[in-house]
Every structure is written in structure tokens, then in C-alpha cells.
């Protein structure tokens, strides 16, 4: 058989068919090659990213907020991780027994959880924030679908209400909202970082790919505050506020040499660890943000102005009889008509008439300059939020009666912090150093305000004021020489002075031979009968000063003998 001539093979196909086939096959290849080029070359980045997202993860690196310590390193504020429970309402399946257990764990009424999940109509809802990690673990064990947790930080304050106003607090996002927490937010805050890693099937991190942002831990802050003096000041202030049924109170302790704030407390206060039901009155950092008419505590500045001008010496006699002075339609009164008093005695007995007469002999500008240079009317620039600058009107608008009342601290308003700072002028031979909330290690350059001679003279007068012939014998401390001045002022209400509402204050320093500490105490509206600064505020000063001097290791500069107090009814009453 001859296959070569098989009729089947005779069948000749047209050439175009094989060509078409070849074309189809090769175009198929061309498509594949094109696709390969597209995937490998042009579309590579997208695919690479997709691939990476299958195993790569970006994880957050949390950063702690810095700790706040006192000057000796005692912890005052520490951040520690807590959990927040949140839910996606559409996915939540909550059986009644589960709800009951969840409610018990979170210490919330079951009804509240239910309303939160069902009635908000949002995609994301917090059930409860800032719960302890142990509780969160037990919530996780309930395995409720649609319920999630995430990590947050919560700030704890071991000092509680004692330090509340100085430290302030942070909000839910660990951001400072009050006090030092707000003032030093940038210093304290940590910057969370993130990094890209490769995770395996078990969720373990097997490789570090890159660091996207390095985490930055918040820096610790060492305050000037001394926790021991602070708690002493707080407890003594609290005892006095309770005893005299005062509406509020404040105390400031300053180190004269460095300008450091060693203690600062206010009442009423609050517990920063539990801030449910806070009122505005509790939150107010009165010593810094509130101003008051200081009353007689301002007299030393008037006297210092007069001494500086050379118009008077401490022994110059001033006629204060008959114990009242009428200027225009207003009359200034003394508690007792004293007759002729030396300038020294005007401070010692706190005579309004005497101070007013001296003030009227001075140019208004020089008094205004004195108030300005000791810091009245200017923000103390301590860094606290809402620091008050007080009110000192420009001297050009002063009328004689105003100048006279300002001499004894009316018609002018200052904060307790300003008052304490201003007194450091007398304690430091006429110099002042700027205030500081943080610990000061290097000495700071003082600024001269008055001459050392004037400062020493006023210091002597202030020492007389706390001795038995003065208005504040209760400010004395055994073993130390103390100097200071009482203040009792009528409170202003709706533009007029309220008859039976007083602000009692005392500002002083010790030891007089080489002053170290200034303490200013203020009680607002004492209503338990006594309201003189010498009876209400001075004892607080004495107890706090005594403890603070002992705690700072200041050697006594006076013999250890019992304090002399004037007999009952013999006390020198201050003029208001």
C-alpha cells in the first residue's frame, strides 16, 4: 500500500489556516508575556504592598507619660496601663445572664449597658473606660461577640486631695487638663511610635522590617514641692478651715533663696483619682487664680515706699488720734484710737489711719511703682493655667481716698501667691527671685527691688507685729524668730463691702536672722466667731512654719523658751 498517495493526504488545506493558528497561539503567548511584564514591572508596587499586607503588620509602640515626683523623688503622679471596653453595637449578642455578669464586673447597672449598646445608633461605643487590667481580663473571658478592649493609660495620684491643685489631672486620653499636668504637658507627654513587622501564622512577630516612628517616652518631672511640707500645710489648713467654718482657704510655702514653691494647697479640694461629681469651687486653685483684697498685709509695702523716699524713719511719729480720718465723704477707722504712733508701731498695731496718712504724703506714682516691682498686677508666670494678675489701677486715676485705702490693702487685689512672693522682698534684703514650680538646682539671679536697709527695717517692724504687743502673737514659734503681718479685710460683694464677711490672712517668714521660708495663709469667710487674721490665719502659719523649718533642717535662732501670749482680752485688735 502506498501511503504517500493516500487520498486522505491528498486533501490540501489552505495555507491561511495554519497561519491563523500560529497567529492565535503566538498572540496568546504575547498576551501572557504582556501580562507578565505588567505584573512584574508596572504593577509591581501595588502587588508587593498587597503581599506584604498578608503578613506584615504595623504595630504601635506605646509611650508612657512621664512621672511627677517631689523634690526628694517621692512619686506624686504615675501613669499605668488600663483597659477600655468598647463595642460595635450591630455585632453584639448579649444574653441576659452574660449581661448580668458583665454589669457586675464593670460595676454598672445592666440597664445602662443595654441602653449604651442599643440606643446610641452609632458604629462604635465605649462601654466603660479606664478599668483595671484584671477586670478587663475577666471581661474578655466572657467571650461576648462584638465587645472589644483597647489599652489606655490612667494617671494615679498617691497624694490624692493633698496635692490636687498643684498637680492637676489628665483627661481620658492622658492629656493634662489642670495644674502642673497642663503646664508641663509638652515635657511630660510621651510620643507613641510604630514599627512594621512580619507576623507568622501563630501571630508571633518573626521579623522587624522597619521602624516607622521611634517611640519617645515622656520625661519625668521633678517638682520643687516637698511632699512632707505639702501634707503638713494641707492638714493644718484643713483643721483651721474646719475649726473656723471657713468657706475656703489657701496656703503657699516658698523658699526665699530659690523661689521654689515648696507647698501650695487650697480648700475645698477634690480627689484627683476619683473625679466624679466635681464642682467648680473644688477645682479652683485659689492661691493662684483667685484674687482678693489683702487688707493690712499690704501695709508693709506702703511703709517701705515711705522709707525708701526718705520721708519717714521707723521712729517718725504720726498722729493717729482720734482713730479716724475723713477724706471727702469716706472715713477710715482704726479698731482703737491710739494717739501718736511711730511708723514701727503703725505696723505693729496695724493702724489704718497711720498707714493712710503716710500714703497720702507720698506721690501716687511711687506707691504704684512699689506695687508693680513686687509683682502685684502682673502674672506670676509660674506656668500654671489661669494665673491671676490681680488688679492695680494706673496711678493717674487714683483719687486721694483710693490712695489712702490702698495703703492698707483695699481697692487693690492680689493672689495669695503674689502676696507670698512679694514678702520675699523683706525676707531677702530687698531682692526677689522668680518663682519656680520645678526644682531649682542652680542659684538664680535676684532682682533688687528696695534697698537692703529698708528691707531690714521693715523686717524688724514685722518681727514686732508677731510679738506680744503686736497683732499676731499666735504666729510665734518656739526656738525661731518670726516676722509677719496679719490681714483682715471685708469681702467685696456686688461692688460694696459686706459687713460680716471677712478674708483673714497672714504672711510671714522665718527665721528672721537669716530667712529661709515665706508662708502665706488665707481663710475666706471664717464664720465661727473669730475673723481676725491674728486669731484665724496666724496659728496655721505658726504650725506649718514650725514643721517646715524642722523638716528643712534650719537651725533655731532663738532660745527655746515658751511663747508669751497676751492675756485674754488684751490682744491688740487689728484695724479692718
Amino acid at each position, binding site marked *: 500500500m502506498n501511503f504517500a498517495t493516500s487520498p486522505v493526504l491528498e486533501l490540501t488545506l489552505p495555507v491561511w489556516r495554519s497561519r491563523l493558528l500560529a497567529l492565535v497561539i503566538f498572540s496568546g503567548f504575547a498576551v501572557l508575556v504582556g501580562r507578565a511584564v505588567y505584573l512584574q514591572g508596572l504593577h509591581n508596587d501595588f502587588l508587593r504592598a498587597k503581599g506584604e499586607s498578608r503578613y506584615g503588620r504595623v504595630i504601635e509602640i506605646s509611650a508612657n507619660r512621664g512621672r511627677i515626683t517631689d523634690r526628694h523623688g517621692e*512619686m506624686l503622679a504615675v501613669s499605668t*496601663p488600663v483597659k477600655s471596653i468598647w463595642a460595635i453595637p450591630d455585632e453584639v449578642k448579649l444574653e441576659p445572664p452574660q449581661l448580668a455578669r458583665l454589669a457586675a464586673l464593670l460595676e454598672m447597672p445592666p440597664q445602662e449597658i443595654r441602653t449604651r449598646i442599643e440606643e446610641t445608633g452609632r458604629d462604635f461605643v465605649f462601654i466603660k473606660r479606664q478599668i483595671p487590667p484584671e477586670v478587663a481580663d475577666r471581661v474578655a473571658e466572657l467571650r461576648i461577640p462584638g465587645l472589644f478592649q483597647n489599652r489606655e493609660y490612667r494617671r*494615679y495620684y*498617691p497624694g490624692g486631695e493633698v496635692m490636687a491643685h498643684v498637680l492637676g489631672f489628665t483627661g481620658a486620653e492622658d492629656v493634662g487638663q489642670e495644674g502642673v499636668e497642663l503646664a508641663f504637658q509638652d515635657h511630660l507627654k510621651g510620643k507613641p511610635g510604630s514599627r512594621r513587622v512580619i507576623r507568622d501564622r501563630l501571630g508571633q512577630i*518573626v*521579623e522587624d522590617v522597619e521602624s516607622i516612628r521611634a517611640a519617645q517616652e515622656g520625661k519625668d518631672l521633678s517638682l520643687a514641692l516637698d511632699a512632707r511640707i505639702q*501634707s503638713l500645710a494641707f492638714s493644718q489648713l484643713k483643721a483651721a478651715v474646719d475649726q473656723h467654718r471657713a468657706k475656703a482657704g489657701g496656703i503657699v510655702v516658698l523658699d526665699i533663696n530659690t523661689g521654689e514653691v515648696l507647698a501650695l494647697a487650697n480648700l475645698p479640694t477634690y480627689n484627683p483619682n476619683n473625679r466624679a461629681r466635681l464642682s467648680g469651687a473644688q477645682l479652683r486653685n485659689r492661691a493662684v487664680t483667685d484674687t482678693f483684697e489683702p487688707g493690712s498685709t499690704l501695709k508693709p509695702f506702703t511703709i517701705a515706699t515711705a522709707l525708701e523716699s526718705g520721708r519717714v524713719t521707723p521712729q517718725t511719729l504720726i498722729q493717729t488720734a482720734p482713730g479716724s480720718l475723713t477724706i471727702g465723704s469716706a472715713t477710715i477707722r482704726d479698731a482703737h484710737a491710739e494717739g501718736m504712733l511711730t511708723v514701727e508701731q503703725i505696723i505693729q498695731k496695724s493702724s489704718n489711719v497711720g498707714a493712710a496718712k503716710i500714703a497720702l504724703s507720698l506721690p501716687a506714682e511711687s506707691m504704684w511703682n512699689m506695687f508693680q516691682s513686687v509683682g502685684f498686677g502682673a502674672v506670676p508666670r509660674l506656668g500654671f493655667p489661669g494665673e491671676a494678675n490681680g488688679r492695680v489701677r494706673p496711678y493717674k486715676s487714683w483719687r486721694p481716698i483710693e490712695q489712702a485705702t490702698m495703703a492698707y490693702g483695699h481697692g487693690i487685689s492680689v493672689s495669695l501667691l503674689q502676696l507670698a512672693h512679694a514678702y520675699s522682698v523683706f525676707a531677702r534684703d530687698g531682692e526677689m527671685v522668680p518663682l519656680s514650680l520645678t526644682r531649682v538646682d542652680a542659684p538664680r539671679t535676684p532682682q533688687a527691688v528696695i534697698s537692703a536697709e529698708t528691707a531690714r527695717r521693715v523686717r524688724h517692724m514685722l518681727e514686732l507685729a508677731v510679738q506680744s504687743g503686736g497683732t499676731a502673737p499666735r504666729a510665734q514659734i518656739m*526656738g525661731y524668730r518670726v516676722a509677719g503681718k496679719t490681714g483682715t479685710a471685708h469681702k467685696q460683694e456686688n461692688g460694696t463691702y459686706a459687713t460680716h464677711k471677712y478674708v483673714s490672712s497672714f504672711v510671714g517668714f522665718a527665721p528672721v536672722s537669716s530667712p529661709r521660708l515665706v508662708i502665706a495663709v488665707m481663710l475666706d469667710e471664717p464664720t465661727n466667731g473669730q475673723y481676725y487674721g491674728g486669731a484665724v490665719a496666724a496659728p496655721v502659719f505658726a504650725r506649718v512654719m514650725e514643721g517646715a523649718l524642722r523638716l528643712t533642717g534650719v537651725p533655731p535662732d532663738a532660745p*527655746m523658751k515658751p511663747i508669751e501670749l497676751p492675756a485674754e482680752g488684751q490682744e491688740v485688735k487689728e484695724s479692718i
Partner: protein
Amino acid sequence: MVRLNLLLLALLTACALGLVTSQHKARKLFVELEQEQERARSLEIEYGQLQLEAGTWAMHTRVERIATRALHMHTPEAKRIQVVPRRAQAQGAAQ
């Protein structure tokens, strides 16, 4: 020629396997490192919490309360305080 190729192939396979094992080992070690770092973090947190606890126990108000109530301590009266002058201390140091 064929033998050389086979030898090279065997060498290549061995190298490839070596790479795989060392990669695996590296990852295992890295997992361990991660775990240790995690532990360090949690210890750091615990340290913070303990500091907090120590701070709470050492609060002055609490110490004072215990000193006065439970231990019946009080600050000595003025009569019983004797102040030692600083001079004696300086002399003591000089000797």
C-alpha cells in the same frame, strides 16, 4: 562535565537548605527576643504600679495617722528639746 554539574547541584541544594534553617533559627530567636522585650515591658509596668503602691502606703497623712493613733507618738514638748549647736559637730569631724 556531568559530574561537576551534579556536584554543584548538590552544593547548591545544601546551601539553600542551610539558608532556610538559619532563617528559621533567626526567626525563632527573634520571637524569643520579642517575648523577652514584652516581659521587660510588663515588668516596667509592674514596677510603676509597685512604685505607686509604695507611694500610697508612704503617704505622710497615713504615716502620721498611724504614728499618733496606733503607736501613740507625738512631737516632744519644748522643755524636752535640746538643741545641739553645730560647733560640736564640726569639732567632732575635725578630730
